[in-house]
């Protein structure tokens, strides 16, 4: 049977359940019959409880993130770092790229639609075609009025190779005619005396 001297050396560890199973059994067997050791164990228990009540437990707030950050700061293989970087970029910058891409696409479509190509679309409409015809008719009427006062005859032909919508000159003897057979329109500007 173990002596109290040997058992008392193991009471602290027994209180903390740190003994091997056979030692735990031996100490427990001794305590069942020894009031002195039981009293010492009770003192250990009391002291342990008092110490735990006095000691302030450190706060664990932010502990996990601090540990993760510290792990991140540890040297990592280049491939792993690139993968992590790309993953973070996709998560955080993905929305920015999407909005940027959308803005670029809208800008491209806007540029396409406000360039002369848009005019071509617009000019295909029946209303604009009618306006264009009216403008040409007015221009032709003006030309004919001017030609009446001119010394040389003038002829405008809509089926010519050129469709003249405006003709301005200080020369009042301007003559315009077309030669459909030769696919040519002529503007004649004789020198004024």
């Amino acid at each position, binding site marked *: 049977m173990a002596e109290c001297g040997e058992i008392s050396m193991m009471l602290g560890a027994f209180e903390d359940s740190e003994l091997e199973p056979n030692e735990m059994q031996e100490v427990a067997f001794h305590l069942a019959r020894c009031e002195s050791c039981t009293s010492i164990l009770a003192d250990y228990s009391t002291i342990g409880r008092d110490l735990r009540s006095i000691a302030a437990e450190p706060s664990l707030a932010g502990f996990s993130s601090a540990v993760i950050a510290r792990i991140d700061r540890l040297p990592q293989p280049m491939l792993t770092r690139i993968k992590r970087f790309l993953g973070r970029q996709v998560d955080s910058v993905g929305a920015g790229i999407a909005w940027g891409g959308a803005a670029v696409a809208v800008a491209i479509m806007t540029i396409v639609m406000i360039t002369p190509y848009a005019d071509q679309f617009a000019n295909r409409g029946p209303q604009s075609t009618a306006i264009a015809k009216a403008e040409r008719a007015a221009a032709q009427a003006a030309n004919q009025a001017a030609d009446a006062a001119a010394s040389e005859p003038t002829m405008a032909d809509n089926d010519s190779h050129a*469709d003249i919508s405006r003709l301005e000159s200080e020369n009042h003897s301007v003559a315009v005619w077309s030669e459909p057979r030769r696919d040519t329109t002529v503007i004649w500007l004789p020198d004024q005396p």
Partner: protein
Amino acid sequence: MTLRPGSLTFLIIAITACAAPNLSYAQAVPKVVTVYIDSVMAADTNEGTDPKLAPMGQKLRGLFGFSTYSLVMHNEGQTDCGKMIAFTLPGGKILHVQPRAVDGDMIAMEIVLFDGTRPMMTTDLKLRNNGTLIVGGPRYERGMMIISIGASTGGSHPMQAQVGTPAQANTR
């Protein structure tokens, strides 16, 4: 707002698909216009037609009654729609040509002919692709100046004079 990579890819593909028809249409419309200018002296000096004018000489003989047609200068240059190109012509004439738009087979343009700094004529017209406009009348040397203005959205002009090196043109 956050988007996952799959959503981002879908968004970009969708926008590109919407924009593609407009872009392909824009690329199909020619923007560059080649302008050909032939300055011809026409006179009644019975010297015939300059061989370099073929086949334009035949057209000139059909249009006018002169006995002499001589190519004085040939100019050509390329410019974009909306961009003016200037040609210096014989006799102190300056020609500004500004293609405005290409509408099907027609090229809309503004043409201004200067005598030195004085504008002689300003006209807006639509010229058929590879078509010719002839401006004539000003006196030049022993006869008159005839300016043939051709425009093309493609390669060579069918009526251009047969000359070696094209003269320089100024664009702005």
